[in-house]
């Protein structure tokens, strides 16, 4: 199943992805990004907006 993978070691924890998520499926802690895969609709907004390409679509 297609889902969004987070490369947490590349992430700067800026939260830009959180703001563009239409279903509030992303949570940002001080140094950890978490996706709720039950809620995520794989719209790819977060993948597109990330300044550092931290998020990717995996098959």
């Amino acid at each position, binding site marked *: 199943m297609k889902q969004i993978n987070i490369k947490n070691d590349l992430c*700067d924890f800026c*939260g*830009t992805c959180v*703001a563009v998520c239409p279903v509030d499926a992303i949570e940002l802690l*001080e140094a950890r990004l978490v996706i709720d895969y039950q809620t995520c609709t794989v719209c790819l907004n977060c993948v*597109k907006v*990330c*300044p*550092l390409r931290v998020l990717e679509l995996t098959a």
Partner: protein
Amino acid sequence: MNDAYDIIVVGAGPAGSTAAYYAAQQGAKVLLLEKDREIGIPVRCGEAVGEKGIRQVVDLRPEWIANRIEAVRLIAPDGTIVKVQHEDIGFILDRKRFDYDLAMMAAQQGVKIVTKAYVCGLLRANGAVAGVEVLHLGHRYQIPAKIVIGADGVESRVGRWAGLKTQVRLRDMETCVQMVVSNVTLPRQYCDFYFSNQLAPGGYIWVFPKNDHLANVGLGISGEFAAHKPPLAYLKEFVAWRFPQAAILTMVAGGVPCAPLMEEVVTDGLMLIGDAAHQANPLTGGGIVLSMLASRMAGMVAAEAIRENNVSKQRLAAYAKQWEKTHGNSHRRSYRLKDAVYKLTDDDLNRTAAAIAKIPPEQHTIINIFKTALMQHPRLIPDIIKVFLGGN
């Protein structure tokens, strides 16, 4: 942490500290929560502010100012430089010290501050927001409050939890990377902005000198263009071209909502301020002064609401109404202008810059520059007329 408060402010950036300061000054019992370990770090900001603006919101301290700016230079794709002697000359701040001191000033008013405090949910009573749930050093706390103020930045979820529409459209999100670079030689009195669809589509590159050999260099592009090439790739190319000797001391990513004002920024027991309320200028992305102005209003209204024992949406909406009255029109105008500017092709930008270069520099006011742009681009006339007719 087990106490109850009048007001809990989530996020200790300039907006959060300012709201907390004014609410406490007016007599409210205030708790300020910051998720990170240290206030002021990391600096996700170009750090430039206009002098008139910043003086409206705070008594400036010399130690907050890294550099004084005398003019802005707009640089076209072909390298033509348009120098603007803005009447509102500005500063490059030292945001680390600035944010730190704003929090200290709030503390001196009696605000309790807790860092490493991650707000993970809202408490509710009778349908209204009634406090927050916090994770702090391995413990979970439920802290009651009459009002929660969300100053939790671009990544805000406080508003969403309360049912407000805080989502930013992809095209309205400026996705940014910035670096602090040394080993550069710059005239320190100029802030440079590069406009070019090659260098920064739907956005711009900034070069803000902090002193003669240190600069904050960054780039923001519209989220709709970032899928093809991420901001980091654009910025690396620019720095390699413009500052081949640069040493990169800091690299930080971030996002700025350059969006229309939100329809609703308050609900029963809850207010949003700063980036969480999309209050940055949509054209420039500048948000420090605007968010602090809004936060002062919000903090004062919150304290009044506490005194009157009425924290309903209707009462808290006094803040939203004040903001609309003082900044609604200018926000909408900036948003329309952003749309117009980002429709320009690189040829448009080059021709505009060439035409402006013929105007004597002392007449380089913003109005003259736009008049010239108008003459160069008749097809933009409807947009630009709308922008000016929509003025304050």
